[in-house]
């Protein structure tokens, strides 16, 4: 065993702690917005527990508040969350050795933050205990999200006008993005992914995000063909290399 379960869980929790600071206001707003839009408390909490994906929840709440057809609400949520398929594929090589019931839990808890923290850590420190580092990052996010949306739904969220708390979310992703850019190939993936997503900002169903993400991955692969893989990205892990 490379790292004890407890140590790995605590390492994951430590890594996610500063991110949770930015999640708290987001969760409060998501809970409050749901009730403001006319959802019952049970629907508001259900959205957080069952869907558990902040950006798509806010989009769904906006549509429900406008009286949009429920089918459009569902499709919008799924399109915004399509990126989770890419995370699922990307983290799968690290978690395929897990028993299915653990993988089911790990799938349910998959978020941008838990994914990005974990794959970055696994690459830098291959001895990391996969399951427990991942759960250490993912489970606190889940718990805080649930508590904050309930509090937001019950108490409401009053944000001072001068405090742009919504900016904390892109800043969190920025803090996760920078260490993921390790050289020219990952740099090309980021530049093209970000650039195409920006051009596609007006696309319906927030599709610009997915188009940008796919374009970015393709750009990374093409750049790798020209300049070679980035140094830190060429670990000699065999396919499906299992640690745990």
């Amino acid at each position, binding site marked *: 065993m490379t790292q004890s379960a407890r140590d790995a869980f605590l390492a994951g929790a430590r890594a996610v702690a500063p991110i949770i*600071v930015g999640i708290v206001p987001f969760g409060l707003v998501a809970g409050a917005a749901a009730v403001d839009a*006319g959802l019952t408390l049970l629907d508001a909490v*259900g959205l957080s527990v069952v869907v558990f994906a902040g950006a798509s929840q806010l989009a769904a709440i906006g549509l429900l508040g406008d009286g949009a057809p429920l089918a459009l609400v569902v499709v919008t949520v*799924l399109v915004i969350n399509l990126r989770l398929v890419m995370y*699922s*594929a990307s983290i799968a090589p690290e978690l395929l050795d897990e028993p299915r019931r653990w993988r089911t839990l790990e799938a349910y808890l998959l978020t941008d933050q838990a994914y990005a923290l974990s794959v970055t850590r696994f690459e830098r420190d291959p001895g990391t205990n996969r399951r427990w580092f991942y759960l250490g990052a993912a489970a606190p996010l889940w718990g805080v999200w649930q508590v904050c949306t309930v509090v937001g739904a019950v108490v409401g969220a009053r944000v001072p006008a001068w405090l742009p708390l919504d900016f904390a979310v892109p800043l969190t*992703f*920025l803090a996760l*993005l920078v260490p993921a850019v390790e050289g020219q190939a990952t740099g090309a993936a980021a530049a093209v992914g970000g650039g195409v997503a920006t051009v596609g900002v007006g696309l319906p169903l927030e599709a610009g995000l997915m188009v940008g993400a796919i374009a970015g991955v393709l750009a990374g692969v093409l750049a790798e063909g020209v300049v070679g893989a980035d140094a830190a990205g060429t670990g000699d892990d065999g396919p499906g290399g299992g640690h745990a």
Partner: protein
Amino acid sequence: MSAGPPPGRFVWLAVVVAGVGTFLLRASFLFLFERVGGVPPRLERALRYVPAAVLAALVIPALVAPDGAPTVLGNDRLLAGALAALVAWRTESVLATISVGMVALVVLDAVGGVV
């Protein structure tokens, strides 16, 4: 506060369907790759670009086009984000990145976008 009509009685159904669908998206390749006996090596190489590509697709529009259209001049979020990116690069600290970015945006907003 929304001015629209109250959501109907079947909101819970939309929540459940969206939730089950979202779970299936999350679970997709965590289970599909098992069926095909692992991750094809070429695909695994491509998947290494997912973090940089997707995170950039989340971040860059939020900084460059915060109001829906790309804006450079007078865009406080872009300036604050650039400063935060510098901090992220130098410190690799999530807390420092968020703190500097937030403070920078509050200050820029207060100054009133002089640039």
